[in-house]
């Protein structure tokens, strides 16, 4: 039996890689990929805790709703990215600073 901590460590590493991608990438789509990594890490935590608890279904339920929200999020975010590309010709997040005061 794989202990709970093994899953949690994998999930923590995955989350940290998502943080790296989120903070250092300048391509908006790559930033989105970092968000996806973090969401996957969170889902893995949900399912791992659910497996090692007395009510194993609730955590999986949360993970399913979280996947649904991730699908909605990525669709809207990519629509926004496409619009930004159309307006300013690049999706470098440092260039999209029209609202900077």
């Amino acid at each position, binding site marked *: *039996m*794989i202990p*709970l*901590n093994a*899953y949690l*460590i*994998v999930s*923590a*590493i*995955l*989350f*940290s*890689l*998502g*943080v*790296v*991608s989120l*903070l*250092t*990438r*300048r*391509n*908006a*789509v*790559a930033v989105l*990929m*970092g968000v*996806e*990594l973090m969401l*996957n890490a969170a*889902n*893995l935590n949900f*399912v*791992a805790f*659910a*497996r*090692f608890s007395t009510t*194993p*279904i609730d955590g*999986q*339920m949360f*993970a*399913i*709703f979280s*996947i*649904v929200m*991730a*699908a*909605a*999020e*990525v*669709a*809207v975010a*990519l*629509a*926004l*990215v*496409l619009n930004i*590309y159309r307006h300013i010709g690049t*999706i470098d997040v440092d260039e999209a600073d029209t609202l900077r005061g």
Partner: protein
Amino acid sequence: MTAEHVAFAILAVLTIGGGISVAFSARVIYAAFSLLFTFIGVAGMYVLLAADFLAVAQVIIYVGGILVLILFGVMLTQRIYDVRLKAQRIQPVVGGIAAAAVLALLVIVIFGTEWNAVVPGDPEPTTEVLGHGFMKEFVFPFEFASIVLLIALVGAALIARRNDNGDGSSERKKANRETGGRLT
């Protein structure tokens, strides 16, 4: 060293290797493709955690839907082979330090907490139980999620639509079409 340990090791390497490639590969298209390995690895971990329905849903939704969307996003927004977007400034240092701090915090919490983990029973099929859950105690979140999905996808299609006449009002387009006016 059972077969389960071997499978977990392979899946962990697949997941984390894909994640490293997502975070550090110089070309964003490679990062998008290595996201595939992470998703597959996480789906395999769901199987090890006795969440069979969730594993299949992960493959269908993430690999079949989200990854394809992201690949379209990458391909529609740049010329693939001349983009090398590595952060040139101070961001890698600060971002790396922040991520390392997050990782250190998580590891300290993981090993410093009593999780009250019960010994899991034998794996059982979860599809029927999940279906009963969706139709009974989780029926409101279920319907709410469907509405959220509908609104988000219609909104995404609306945002991503090419807006030829500036304000995009349908009456004006229709009037232009009737009078034979060109949409500018």
